């Protein structure tokens, strides 16, 4: 069996991933330095199949022509939303260049929805306010319900035009790092079943989210946290892995996102006994309370035995009741979500109660970078030639809770910032590549292919995802997290006894799933250890046994995993430069209370 290196490719810039962050970065590099050779590898069959294509709602950006809105309000909303754990230098940079990014997309053909004047239409979202929380504001531009697709189509087109080389269905499996310098990656070309070495001067990790760690998730099937696993396996830390966002209303059982609109048009959440339970948890706001609060309320009902179990998907849920709303609301205000219920659970929102439950949605934590996307180790020293952008990275713009529409803004902004940084970096690089011998992929893949035993990869993966959903999701306690850690260790042991039916490497989906299982386990482990260490509640991280935010935890968590599988925790300070700058409004950027 051939797991040796089949061939070596060379390029200036290697991008692991081809989602929104990856392609915005590549496009920027081409615009600034047209003759750059860029290779982008992607796990999916084509860049357009990346997860960014599914982002629906919109993209936050303050329009300088808008007399009511101001960039500082956007910064404040982001800081407050993050539960005071975002880095203020990053918040400032991203919010300030947001509109420029919108124009970049618009000028290159993105089909934004328009108002009667032919200008970009705007919508409002939870947490978008003017005057520091005074009232809501229209700040999100959008392309109907397919904003992410618009970004993907545009940035894919631009990179294709400029001559990028895509290697689709090709997975990055080992970073080539020596003396704090990255020289490329080892990758597996799935179609051919060939292991290749890609040597590069700069490497950008843009692998997206990690939602598959959880059983119910709005994320796509490829989101197995590969980028996080890649850095952990290289002895580098991940930051704030415990900061995982759950959307209150994923459609049971696939976990498809049913937007907040359902609640804002008057949908009522009901338990098994059809009681409208939100009144118990948020007597004033009820269904309109913020995401995390609603998710906890639903989860409490389910835990109290007042959920309903869907027999097909075998998972507990509550109902969202929309039957009392006039037909017009169903047809005019929620046509997309109504069609999702029809399509995926065969229910009619006009006459049926619809099953929803909290679903994993977004990973705020990720690969620690500075404000320009340069990857750092636990001592905040830069790894030369290694960058991170998009959902897999944490600069951190979102802290412990992301506002709707801030993610796809971050992708394109950080993508373009990293692009500029890479262009500068290339000027300093010698023209020859540095070749390195891979360290870890061969023994690993050898074991995957040669171990024998009766354990099933699919069953182990389900067990991991179930324990994470049951023990380390919306609610966490010392006990529940420890239980999950024990299960993870058990799965780790059992995974040594899986076998792979076909020894042919070409398009061997079992082999890829075996490798993904290892990534999922690593990411799950980092989530658990950080969550157990953080004995407080902050943003999306909620501990039943420590239910308030504590000043002593006003810092980021860094988690590394050593060769023996032991986890090591350390901290990174939060950048408070907006607060420290003093002057007008700086007090708004202190550790303020997150109440709505």
């Amino acid at each position, binding site marked *: 069996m051939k797991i040796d290196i089949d061939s070596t490719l060379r390029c200036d810039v290697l991008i692991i991933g081809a989602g929104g962050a990856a392609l915005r970065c590549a496009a920027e590099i081409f615009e600034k330095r047209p003759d750059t050779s860029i290779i982008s590898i992607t796990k999916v069959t*084509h860049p357009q199949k990346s997860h960014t*294509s*599914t982002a629906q709602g919109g993209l936050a950006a303050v329009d300088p022509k808008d007399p009511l809105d101001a960039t500082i309000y956007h910064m404040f909303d982001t800081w407050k939303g993050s539960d005071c754990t975002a880095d203020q230098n990053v918040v400032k940079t991203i919010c300030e260049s947001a*509109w420029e990014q919108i124009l970049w997309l618009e000028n290159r053909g993105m089909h934004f929805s328009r108002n009667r004047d*032919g200008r970009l239409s705007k919508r409002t979202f939870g947490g978008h306010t003017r005057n520091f929380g005074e009232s809501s504001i229209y700040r999100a531009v959008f392309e109907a319900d397919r904003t992410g697709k618009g970004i993907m189509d545009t940035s894919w087109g631009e990179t294709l035009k400029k001559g990028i080389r895509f290697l689709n269905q090709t997975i990055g499996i080992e970073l080539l790092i020596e003396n704090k310098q990255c020289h490329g990656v080892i990758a597996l070309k799935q179609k051919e079943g060939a292991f290749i070495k890609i040597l590069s001067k700069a490497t950008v990790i843009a692998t997206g989210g990690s939602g598959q760690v959880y059983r119910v998730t709005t994320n796509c099937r490829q989101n197995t946290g590969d980028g996080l696993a890649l850095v952990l396996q290289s002895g580098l830390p991940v930051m704030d892995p415990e900061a995982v966002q759950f959307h209150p209303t994923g459609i049971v059982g696939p976990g498809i996102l049913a937007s907040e609109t359902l609640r804002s048009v008057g949908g009522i959440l009901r338990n098994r006994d059809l009681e409208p339970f939100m009144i118990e948890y948020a007597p004033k706001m009820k269904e309109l309370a913020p995401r995390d609060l609603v998710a906890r309320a639903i989860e409490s009902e389910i835990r109290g035995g007042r959920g309903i179990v869907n027999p097909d998907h075998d998972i507990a849920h509550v109902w969202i009741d929309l039957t009392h709303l006039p037909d017009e609301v169903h047809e005019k205000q929620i046509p997309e979500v109504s069609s999702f219920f029809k399509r995926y659970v065969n229910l009619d929102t006009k006459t049926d109660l619809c099953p929803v439950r909290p679903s994993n949605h977004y990973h705020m934590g990720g690969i620690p970078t500075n404000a320009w996307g340069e990857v750092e180790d636990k001592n905040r020293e830069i790894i030369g030639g290694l960058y991170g952008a998009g959902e897999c990275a944490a600069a951190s713009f979102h802290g412990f809770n992301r506002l709707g529409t801030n993610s796809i803004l971050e992708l394109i902004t950080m993508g373009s910032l990293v692009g500029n940084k890479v262009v500068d970096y290339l000027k300093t690089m010698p023209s020859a590549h540095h070749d390195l011998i891979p360290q870890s992929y061969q023994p690993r893949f050898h074991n995957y292919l040669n171990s024998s035993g009766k354990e099933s990869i699919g069953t182990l993966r*389900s067990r991991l995802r179930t324990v994470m959903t049951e023990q380390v999701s919306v609610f966490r306690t010392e006990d529940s997290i420890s239980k999950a850690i024990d299960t993870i260790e058990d799965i780790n042991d059992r995974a040594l006894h899986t076998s792979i*039916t076909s020894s042919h490497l*070409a398009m061997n989906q079992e082999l890829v799933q075996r490798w993904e299982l290892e990534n999922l386990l690593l990411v799950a482990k980092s989530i658990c250890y950080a969550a157990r260490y953080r004995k407080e509640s902050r943003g999306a991280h909620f501990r039943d046994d420590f239910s308030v935010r504590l000043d002593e935890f006003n810092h980021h968590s860094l988690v590394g995993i050593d060769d023996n599988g032991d986890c090591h925790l350390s901290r990174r300070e939060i950048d408070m430069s907006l607060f420290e700058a003093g002057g007008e409004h700086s007090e708004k950027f202190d550790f303020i209370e997150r109440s709505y």
Partner: protein
Amino acid sequence: MSKLYDLTLRIQRTNSEDGKPRYQTYQLQAGPIMRFVDLLRMINDDQDPSLTWNSSCEHGQCGTCSMRINGRPMLACELLVENGVEMFNTTTFTLEPLQVATVVRDLVVDSDEAYERVNRVKPYIIDPLPPGKDGEEHQINPDQLELYVDATRCINCFCCASACISSHRTFLGPNAMLATIVRVLDSREQEKKERLKTIYSDQGVYRCHTSKACSHVCPKEIDVAHFIALAKKGFALE
């Protein structure tokens, strides 16, 4: 208790060793709202981990899971068991790869090969209108946008191309045509000549026989044939 269906899935399999297709039959039980992607996963987990297929978003947004189910190109993540049973009036389903490119393995076709036709029409603005005033976007009247916005919804699932007999030969295919038609109608594209040349070339719209199979199978319910007809009429907009 929800009802369980006894299903028979006849799946076309092609391995990389000899490249010859054969059919393998799987029996399984599943509830009414399981999707076809769930069925394939069940087969992987319980019966045959080597059966190869593909998906990504699993909610009809990316076009990765397209395949032929009882001959009809569709998205496997959008078809529920009970809807499939009703639509085809049977509990036996034949699953085959799309007819748009070489089969890599089982239900997976070579998407690079399929996309090559889309790449040929240049799915980007070739010559962009210069930017507006500082900080200002271009103005596009919503009525103008309405004329082509449906064509921008295409996710390149290639269901239409699989159903379109003409595109099995030289025709670039319905979705490739949409990608270029959009940019003929978009005022931000200045390079119309090259686009029209492709559209009216011997690989362009005149290869289309107006069967409307494309519109019929499109999972996004885009009236693809309407746009092709529009191009045939020389974009004479009423």
